[in-house]
């Protein structure tokens, strides 16, 4: 039995849409820009309630990033919306120069991240975005795990001054975090206390880490499950405290192993607390078309992959 249960599944992008509507109601400076994906990004409610603060940009993402930087210069708090691929790789230089280097208060909100985008295939399955964004100075990078956490994160980033990349997804996934939670940027959340291994999970993989913990418990292994929703700035103390106890670590993310959460954790540990570590993520390949669950299994992102990684890393202690 998992230590968390759920009664409902919803997509994290809908959590973004609900959060955006709420920040729109609470702060007249919040504006939203969308590159022809209003429905996919769940920005329709904001558009309908605040048409004067919603800007349809068309299929022109580079322009959208510049517009957002200009609106931020004028004191607005722009939220841009498109798929993760078009939110990062396509517009990297625009983000780098006009937003990150220029320290603009722009919230880059990206849906359909990772392989769970499914049938559209590798052109749209963005698996490099966390790496691209975390490398940029001044950028905060957040990857929430379920509907409620995504909504809370959306509300939190509106209050935070500075550029943010907020990444979420397409499929319906379990809702297992509380409604109306207080989201603290840069603060890891301990979901399950344990002593034999530390599992650091972000985004959709947190639920799989929780499922893996139940399997491990049945084998007599005590796993600590920690949610790193903020990839940058990384909650270094939470990671070090957990690893000090467990002496080994597994990172789990729906992203390339190269440049993702695992890399950030490993960088920290190798400098401050060298520790055996395993990575659950996509191993230097593009994705393909298929159902999300099939893809998660094929690309090594399932509950069992976390379970196996734990067994392997414990052997290395």
């Amino acid at each position, binding site marked *: 039995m998992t230590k968390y249960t759920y009664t409902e599944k919803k997509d994290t992008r809908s959590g973004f849409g609900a959060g955006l509507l709420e920040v729109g109601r609470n702060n007249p400076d919040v*504006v939203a820009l969308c590159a022809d994906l209003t429905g996919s990004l769940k920005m329709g409610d904001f558009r309908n309630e605040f048409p*004067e*603060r919603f*800007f349809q*940009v*068309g299929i*022109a993402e*580079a*322009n*959208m*990033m*510049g*517009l*957002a*930087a*200009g*609106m*931020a*210069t*004028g*004191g*607005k708090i*722009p939220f841009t919306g498109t798929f993760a691929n078009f939110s990062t790789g396509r517009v990297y*230089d*625009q983000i*780098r*120069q*006009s937003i990150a*280097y*220029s*320290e*603009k208060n722009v919230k880059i909100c990206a849906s359909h991240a990772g392989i769970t985008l499914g049938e559209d295939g590798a052109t749209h399955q963005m698996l490099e975005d966390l790496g691209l964004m975390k490398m940029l100075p001044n950028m905060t990078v957040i990857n929430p795990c379920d509907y409620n956490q995504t909504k809370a994160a959306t509300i939190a980033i509106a209050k935070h001054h500075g550029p943010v990349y907020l990444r979420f997804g397409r499929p319906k996934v379990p809702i297992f975090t509380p409604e109306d939670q207080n989201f603290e940027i840069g603060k890891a959340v301990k979901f399950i206390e344990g002593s034999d291994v530390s599992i650091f999970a972000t985004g959709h993989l947190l639920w799989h880490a929780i499922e893996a913990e139940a399997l491990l418990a049945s084998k007599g292994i005590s796993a600590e499950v920690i949610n790193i929703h903020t990839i940058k700035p990384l909650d270094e103390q939470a990671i070090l405290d957990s690893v000090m106890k467990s002496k080994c670590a597994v990172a789990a993310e729906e992203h390339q192993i190269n440049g993702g959460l695992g890399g950030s954790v490993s960088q920290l540990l190798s400098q401050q607390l060298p520790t055996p570590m395993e990575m659950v993520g996509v191993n230097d390949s593009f994705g393909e078309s298929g159902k999300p669950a099939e893809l998660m299994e094929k690309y090594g992102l399932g509950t069992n992959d976390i379970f196996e990684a734990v067994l392997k890393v414990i052997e290395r202690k």
Partner: protein
Amino acid sequence: MNQTTEPVSAPKIETLEKIASQVRRDIVRMVHACQSGHPGGSLGCTEFFVAMYFHLLKHDPKFNMQGDGEDIFFLSNGHISPLWYSVLARSGYFPLEELKTFRKINSRLQGHPATEEGLPGVRIASGSLGQGLSVAIGAAQAKKLSGDPQTVFVLMGDGEQQEGQIWEAAMYAAHHQVDNLVATLDYNGQQIDGPVDDVISLKNIKAKWEAFGWEVMESQGNDLNQLIPKMEAAVALSRQGKPVINIMSTEMGYGVDFMVGSHKWHGIPPNDQQLASALDQLEETLGDY
């Protein structure tokens, strides 16, 4: 923006020409001192910047980022930074002395404009081309949302018109009727690899902007007597449902005889003899920094 339609007086023009001569001295001295930078385009746009900062813009050298109640200016072709820095310093945004630090370590006067060290007058980093128009459109829309009646200005280069983002922005601004915006295109016909017509021709650039739904006008940028009324006319054309662009012909390197009209002076500094020759041609009117 001064809402004047009066012709600019002769004494006013004379004052602005004196400032322009001094700004040109600053430009060649700055790029000489650090032996790097972009004198050609800077010299070619000197009249434009002097007209903007010393006559046309409603602006406050005390500088705040949002620029509420002010006209605000964005530079998209950031490599002509020595010109902008000189004009900002001589407008009172920061001490003239600071021009000595241009492109040197620990300076706020970066090779290309940046906000990171808080240089007054600069609102966005630029240098990677094609981005400034989008930023200016966003700032203009923010002004509209805030009920601010002032105008947003942006300067772009001609080689920069080859960037695709310019045309995304052009389409957007016309569609959304961003009519509190006046863009200027510095049409000097030169880019790093040679004449624009040889690199990638803009063909009929006026027709292109018109086809994108902009109000288009043309001007001569190295003659203040012509340029100022044209810029005032550009502002008069704003607020009528269309964004406005002024295609401004200039000569790269204008004011220094051996630099005029050649792409070779796009991005190289003068040596000692060349500096002396350039300074001989430019009267010191306000005192060197």
